[in-house]
């Protein structure tokens, strides 16, 4: 396997080099012509090697759908290198062998405006089953608050399933002495909570402050998880509210000491604790202290997180196509090879089928104007 890869890459490199060398009269035109087959049309599109696909049990396809010899484009709405990209590439490597006709899947990154640009593109893509999308979860809140540029309706996508379930939690430096929600309310000095402006994390911190009286001051402007975690480690901020699973995954060293550097204080889950934090109080326990509007705002903010890393087809694809993808997707997340790949990428797997995802995103999320206005207000307040 190694040698095959070696040969493919070697040929590619030598071919390219051969066209670039030679006499100066031909050097430039030849070199210029070479990449037009690859990076020109889709500069960040990436073909996967066949090596990644290993023989595995195939799902039984519905008769009318066959992808033999086809190439499917998987749209990822963020740049290469992030979490969405990493999971997208694992799926692109494993989904093909569960689809009828074993097609090839290439990843195409369409980053921009927090996922809006790519999601707009996916929404209007031809629904022939050859374009699929990794759906950006935060886009739900983006649409609800009426962010500029939104030209899609997330409730019209056809969902094939989801791979993870995310639970948000607020966690603070253990040496700051905040162990319970009551400590947050009683704290005489402000609790500096870091985060990125415009994200749903800001709404959750805002709700804790307004509805429960926690003494939070938000410090916003950090660019993502790693950036905020440096600030927590250096003591610039005391903690953060965000998806908990990324904390031990990206900072294993924080949990090697006793006590750990940070402690989760409250988790935003309904109907039972996340199994990763069995002893941390859930926001459910404080429901009666919330106003009705506040509670509805909370529900709207955390509902999409139950279906994290969701994959979808553009609106308009026919039923047999959707059925084929749903079946393949479910078969993929139960496949030991895929489970191992997700483990290697440090992504806790929580597979959910298309019907479940559809039920949560399409049927359960019903948001009043009052709640929308509240989310918009909380995003702007600190």
């Amino acid at each position: 396997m190694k040698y095959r890869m070696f040969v493919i890459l070697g040929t590619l490199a030598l071919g390219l080099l051969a066209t670039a060398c030679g006499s100066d009269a031909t050097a430039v035109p030849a070199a210029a012509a070479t990449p037009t087959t690859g990076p020109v049309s889709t500069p960040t599109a990436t073909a996967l090697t066949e090596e990644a696909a290993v023989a595995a049990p195939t799902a039984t396809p519905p008769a009318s759908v066959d992808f033999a010899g086809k190439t499917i484009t998987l749209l990822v709405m963020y740049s290469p290198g992030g979490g969405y990209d990493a999971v997208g590439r694992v799926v692109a490597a494993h989904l093909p062998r569960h689809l009828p006709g074993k097609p090839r899947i290439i990843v195409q990154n369409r980053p921009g405006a927090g996922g809006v640009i790519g999601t707009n593109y996916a929404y209007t893509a031809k629904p022939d089953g050859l374009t699929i999308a990794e759906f950006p979860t935060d886009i739900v809140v983006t649409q609800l608050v009426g962010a500029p540029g939104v030209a899609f309706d997330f409730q019209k996508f056809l969902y094939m399933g989801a791979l993870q379930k995310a639970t948000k939690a607020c966690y603070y430096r253990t040496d700051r002495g905040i162990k319970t929600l009551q400590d947050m309310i009683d704290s005489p000095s402000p609790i500096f909570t870091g985060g990125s402006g415009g994200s749903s994390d800001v709404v959750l911190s805002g709700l804790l402050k307004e509805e429960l009286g926690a003494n939070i001051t938000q410090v916003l402007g950090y660019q993502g998880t790693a950036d905020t975690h440096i600030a927590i480690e250096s003591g610039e901020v005391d903690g953060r509210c965000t998806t908990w699973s990324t904390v031990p995954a990206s900072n294993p060293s924080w949990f090697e000491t006793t006590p750990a550097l940070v402690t989760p204080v409250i988790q935003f889950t309904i109907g039972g604790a996340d199994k990763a934090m069995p002893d941390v109080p859930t926001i459910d326990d404080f429901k009666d202290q919330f106003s009705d509007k506040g509670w509805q705002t909370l529900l709207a903010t955390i509902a999409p997180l139950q279906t994290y890393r969701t994959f979808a087809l553009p609106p308009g694809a026919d039923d047999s196509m959707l059925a084929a993808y749903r079946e393949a997707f479910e078969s993929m997340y139960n496949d030991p090879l895929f489970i191992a790949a997700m483990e290697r990428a440090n992504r806790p797997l929580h597979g959910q089928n298309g019907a479940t995802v559809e039920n949560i995103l399409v049927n359960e999320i019903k948001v009043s104007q009052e709640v929308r206005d509240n989310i918009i207000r909380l995003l702007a307040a600190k």
Partner: protein
Amino acid sequence: MFEAAADGLMGLLDPFTLGLMVIGILIGLVVGLLPGLGGITAMVLMLPFTFDMTPIQAFSFLLGMFVVSSNAGELTSILFGVPGEGTTAATILDGHPMAKKGQAGRAMGASLASSAVGAVLGAITLAIALPIVRPLVLSFGAPELFALTILGVTFIASLSGGSLTRSILMGGMGFALATVGSSPQTGIYRFTFGAPYLLEGVQLVPVALGLFAIPEIIDLAVRRTSIAQADLGKVGGVMQGVKDAFTHRWLVVRSASLSAFIGLIPGLGSAAAQWMSYAHAVQSSPRKEEFGTGRVEGVLAPGASANAKEGGALIPTVAFGVPGSLAMAILLGAFQIVGLVPGPRMLTTHLDVTFSMVWILVIANFISIGFLALLLPQLVRLTKVKGLILVPIILAMVWLGAFSNQSNFGDLVLLAVAGAMGYAMVALDWPRPPLILGLVLGSLADKNLGIAYQRYHYDFFTDPTVVVILLIAAASLVYALVQNKRIARAKAGLAEMDKRTGGRGGHA
């Protein structure tokens, strides 16, 4: 630690791993030599091939590719006046005028020699910094980063090319353009005028390509000659360029160290490093007025910076998971694919992997310089090819390079606007570098000032580190002001001399 360094080297010397590095280098060489396209594009395309590699194999493949394309990118900057990486345009300012004067060989020799020294120094900085890097980086919070961006802004004064007023106006315009897009604090969109493309802000790559490449292409088309207007001499003086690197060795060393340090601080971003090195070369030269007309120091400083800054930028990437540059962001993707978690373990349990990266930087650099040296004679001759043959090819490459930024047609519109602006600025003698530096530093200043104010209000101005950095900035500004007056006087003198001799020569 020495054991880990040796383990890292041993892991790398496996024939299969070395073979992958050479393949990576060959791919990077071709992509890097195409003007406008850089190693980033190549790395993204090759990322999936790393699925079945061990960490050291994956890094030698990707880093090797990146190192050579950044060296090759310097060469395209010199030859065609097109920034190789989109974000590293400083080499053009003096490198391309040298090519026009028939000294492309000398400029390329100087660039390669200084980049070899830069890579080694960057690697040494990296190795020395490893044990203290986490406490060092953690001591730089938002207030200190804000002060550093202010220090960077004072470099604008040195990039003015004489007129300080125009320079400050352009720097201010760069700052203004940096505020387009979502506010880091509130997520509210600013100055986007309903255009979805602007939601992400004004992109650096199309702006840099437009400002610098388009005017050169128009110039070449209008002149209807080849790039080099003078005779080449013996292979254009490659060895002379290598000698230059040793004549100005301390400039090379200082530029490399400065860039490694800028790369090391997470969030400062290595896009600013090359400009600051160039500004430093101007500041420290006794003949400032000649920069921009083809001084070899103007090639040496950015050349030394090219790989040194990546050595520095590896540190926040491996130790904190915060990519210091675009290339490092792709490398971070490779981390996830091979199942490594950036963080303190990279400095303890996986120290050998981290050290292997240091070695890769050095070894890949020497291999790639070897390859490029073989190609130099051919490349030099390109400057004698008729402009009318080169123009369409370079132009196509530049459009491609801009489009590969986000695969958005907005990139092309921005390139055209920046190109028109760049042409007007050259024609009317307005300086372009302050605009780029303002764009790079503006968003950093915006973000860090916001965080510092939310956290400390105005108290952060009393922090001792902040005070010291701001004092250095003030001193640097005063120095530049004094020097600028001198340059203006010298330029007036030169113009007087030109008038008398009736020619443009006399200050090569």
